């Protein structure tokens, strides 16, 4: 592991729930991740920030095991997962909400909500999910993809809360949503954090990320190049603008 990356990693809290070291991943022959390093402590909300194509989404896919060709180390709760299939990784207690939300058009809202099996005790009940996302209760019989973009995002997050997963991987949950819905999603993530969920969030919208996250990792060309604690975000805003090209 490069020294700079090791330095970044050691800034994270001790006894991490998720520890990623030297993660490499490939799409076919295309080498996309070149040694990602970061840690996430229990109860933390951490974002992966970066430009399009930097490797943020691929990092989440590699953690959950969707990327078939990957090397390095991904340790979740003390268990090395980098050689496990995604179904086994999910059953350790990791919930994944993909960028395109992954709502199934052939399933009703209720079927979408109940689809992921409970992998561990302690998941939210359907009633608790309805408290978080009241819209879903009224749309249970609708076809999943007939929901608005915001409702689909709520459904995509809601269904992994049922499973008992302790680590949530949320890929661009605010993408394409109206500001009022983005606020709702932000409040939901804050509430999930207060209830002890650990969250890795991929975001382009760092203003949104700054409202919910404890720390931000900056990803460039398949590597983590910086880590900025949320408390130091204002002091580093010019640097972050340079990273993100805004």
């Amino acid at each position, binding site marked *: 592991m490069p020294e700079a990356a090791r330095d970044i990693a050691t800034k994270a809290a001790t006894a991490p729930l998720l520890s990623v070291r030297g993660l490499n991943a490939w799409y076919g022959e295309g080498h996309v991740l070149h040694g990602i390093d970061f840690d996430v402590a229990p109860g933390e909300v951490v974002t992966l920030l970066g430009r399009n194509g930097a490797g943020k989404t691929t990092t989440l896919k590699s953690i959950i*095991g969707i990327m078939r060709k990957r090397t390095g180390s991904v340790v979740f709760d003390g268990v090395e997962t980098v050689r496990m299939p995604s*179904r086994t990784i999910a059953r350790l207690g990791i919930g994944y909400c*993909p960028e395109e939300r992954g709502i*199934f058009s052939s399933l009703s809202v209720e079927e979408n909500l109940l*689809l*992921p099996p409970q992998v561990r005790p302690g998941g939210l009940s359907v009633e608790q999910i309805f408290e978080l996302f009241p819209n879903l209760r009224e749309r249970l019989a609708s076809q999943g993809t007939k929901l608005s973009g915001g409702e689909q995002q709520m459904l995509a997050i809601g269904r992994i809360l049922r499973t008992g997963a302790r680590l949530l991987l949320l890929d661009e949950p605010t993408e394409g949503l109206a500001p009022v819905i983005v606020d709702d999603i932000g409040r939901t993530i804050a509430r999930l954090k207060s209830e002890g969920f650990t969250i890795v969030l991929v975001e382009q919208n760092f203003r949104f990320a700054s409202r919910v996250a404890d720390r931000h990792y900056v990803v460039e060309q398949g590597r983590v190049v910086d880590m900025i604690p949320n408390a130091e975000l204002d002091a580093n805003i010019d640097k972050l603008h340079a990273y993100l090209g805004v």
Partner: protein
Amino acid sequence: MFELLGIPPQALFGQLLLGLINGSFYAILSLGLAIIFGLLNIINFTHGAQYMMGAFVAWMLLNYAGIGYWWALLLAPVIVGAMGIVIDRLFLARLRDLDHLYGLLLTFGLALIIQGLFRNQYGVSGLPYSIPPELAGGRNLGFMFLPNYRGWVVVASLAVCLATWFVIEKTRLGAYLRAATENPTLVQAFGINVPRLITLTYGFGVGLAALAGVLAAPIYSVNPNMGADLIIVVFAVVVIGGMGSILGSIVTGFGLGLIEGLTKVFYPEAAATVIFVVMVVVLLVKPAGLFGRTA
């Protein structure tokens, strides 16, 4: 007794019944094909051979083990379905990431091998399989004579099709299947064992073909070519219903059986081709099939 366009009712309803029976086999077989295509993305050309194997396993159970029709209805689908699972694990699992064409070629080759083996062993003249005594005879309905066994085939097929539809559309297992058909990667990322689901689904689809074979055994002679003759028509049924559509397979299977029966009454020369004419028309008007979803 009334006549319709000069056709006596016995002839009309007799042909409709024959159409309904053929439709029963079309429905079960196309249902199995649709389930397999939906989840595995494989056009299972071995389906006709597996239908034939169902009939042969029933015949073997009776002649080698003394096990009769009712047990064969249960055992033959399980045995042939288990063979399907072996085929999936040995061959089809290796083709998952390749184009459909590879699966089609492999299953076509397997069908030829299986049929060749059975032809070599049993010839092509056909082996008799008796109707179970409980279903022998028939009843006069006034306008036609209904053989009990043929009535049973229609009822049993309809029950199997509706039960399969119910499981797929209304249960948690069915939700897994439908979701895995759409996005197997994500379903796997939820902790569901998709490879096992795929293998069991293939086994179930093959079991349906074998069940149709057992039902067919007392009606048609048990013959190594019985599946090869039927499978082309069944593929046309699947295309008309919409590739991968469960409801489409059932409705189209029974519907086309009836259309074929009516054609035998009114224009017998076209009876063998009417299904393909319908297929051409449907492909021109609605290429995704009557119940299929456009991509």
